[in-house]
């Protein structure tokens, strides 16, 4: 707790000396002292959690329309399962990235004598967090997008079966969005290096 002691010795924790609503220097001080391992774990949690939220929401949207449309045309249910699978793929992206990230967060970083962490370890923690958030948010919105288009596909199929393939093409483009997030997250995770810290 070296730095904290420094701050205290220099006149106590003067909350908000600048007079603003947020004391940015104190906030930065807090962040510096958060364990990079916490950021890494939060990144993994965001990657899988938000992806599954997106996928589940998409399945909810597409699934309810699919079931309703299948009341009068049962044959449509099996054909439109592809929408559900597309939504499911979104969750799989999240799982893949979460696994990659969590295999990289191996060794807990050690505090330096002054209580802070090495820049290497902090960079790794932030990179993991950002990568997780990237893939999580990308997949959340991708999942909702695929769900909405998937429900439109089911409805279009119910009204006019020739439309199904056309809407499916749109759906494929929608599901590609999540992949962009995955690519960026994988590139970001290249800089994670807890062992070298």
């Amino acid at each position, binding site marked *: 707790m070296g730095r904290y002691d420094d701050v205290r010795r220099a006149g106590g924790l003067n909350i908000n000396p600048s007079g603003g609503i947020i004391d940015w220097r104190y906030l930065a001080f807090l962040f510096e002292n958060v364990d990079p391992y916490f950021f890494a774990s939060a990144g993994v949690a965001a990657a899988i959690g938000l992806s599954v939220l997106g996928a589940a929401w998409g399945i909810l949207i597409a699934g309810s329309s699919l*079931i309703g*449309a299948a009341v*009068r045309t049962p044959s449509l249910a099996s054909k439109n399962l592809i929408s559900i699978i597309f939504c499911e793929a979104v969750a799989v992206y999240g799982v893949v990235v979460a696994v990659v990230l969590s295999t990289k967060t191996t060794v807990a970083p050690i505090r330096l004598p002054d209580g802070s962490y090495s820049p290497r370890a902090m960079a790794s923690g932030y990179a993991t967090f950002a990568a997780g958030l990237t893939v999580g948010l990308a997949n959340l919105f991708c999942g909702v997008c695929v769900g909405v288009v998937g429900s439109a596909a089911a409805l279009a199929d119910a009204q006019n079966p020739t439309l199904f393939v056309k809407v499916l093409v749109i759906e494929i483009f929608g599901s590609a969005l999540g992949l962009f997030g995955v690519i960026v997250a994988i590139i970001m995770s290249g800089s994670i290096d807890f062992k070298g810290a």
Partner: protein
Amino acid sequence: MNCPEEVSFNVKDGFLDAALRGFRRGLISAQEYRNLGQCDSLDDLKLQLVNNHCNTDFESEFLNETASLHTSTFFANCSNKLVDDFNRIRYQASEPVSTFLNFLTHGHMIDNVILVISGKNHELDLKVLLDKCHPLGLFDSISSLTVPSTMNDLYRLVLADSPLSPYFGECTSDINLDELNLEFMRSKLYKEWNQEMLAIAYLKEFLAFCYKLDGGTSALMRNILYFEADRRAINITMNSSGIDLSPDSRCLVLSKYGTLYTRGQFELAQFEVPERIRAAMRKDPTFCSMSTSLIVYSEDFIERILCEQEMKFCDTTFQEQFNYATFYGCLKRREQEIRNIVWVAECISQGQKHKVNDGIVLNM
């Protein structure tokens, strides 16, 4: 609650909305109507309808029918099926769809109430009257409608408990216009006058309800209900054409909203010659295209054009997703389909098959 409709709509209403799309596919197409028109007898027509090429909606209903066929049998069977389907949807609906669906039946209830009351005035048998009522508009206390003798008693004893009470309440409070009432009574328009006042109150309530719903629903329903109000205005004008009424009192029967209200209603109220109605319609974009096609002026023709326009509106509800207007559109399409089938049956039974295509209104 403020998340966009795309994300939140399907949580509660996705199933029902999608189920309606299935109903739409079951509607009889133009080609199938042509095939139906080729039938030689009502038995043939029945077979065609039961046949899988056509709408299978009627299958189970028709198989049980062994008695000799009338056009009324077709109507009864088809509307029973419609009521079944409607109720099936309604039982699964949650708020606010269930309220929306209830509103859809109120229009028929009003017609039924007016039918029973005016039938009673002509001393017709209650059972005959109830048979004539639209099955969607039946409610528990409808058979006791004939008991009270004055309008006040009627409202207090029967209608106060029915779903229609708000509309009647508004009407009866509005009727301090005794002289006007008398004028209408004298002009034998009394029935229309009541019906019109009720319908306007109903449309107003319905519209107010729709405005409370999400953006897509209120925008679509606004168009549809405005059109409905305009249609009523045109109809009442046509019905009262032979009757001596001042333009001012005519204006009172016409609804106080709708696209024609601002633009052409006064012309409509002064309607004496066919040209007038066209002039009124020309002022509004929706009706403008229709008025140009009004080459032959006749009530049937206007009726038909208005009907086609309504079907167009109903069809646009299917082009959009995540709104409740689809429920309205689907019901109206099904009702029109029943009218079409009855028309075909009528043509066949009267041996006037060349007229089959004249009476069918559809817009695919």
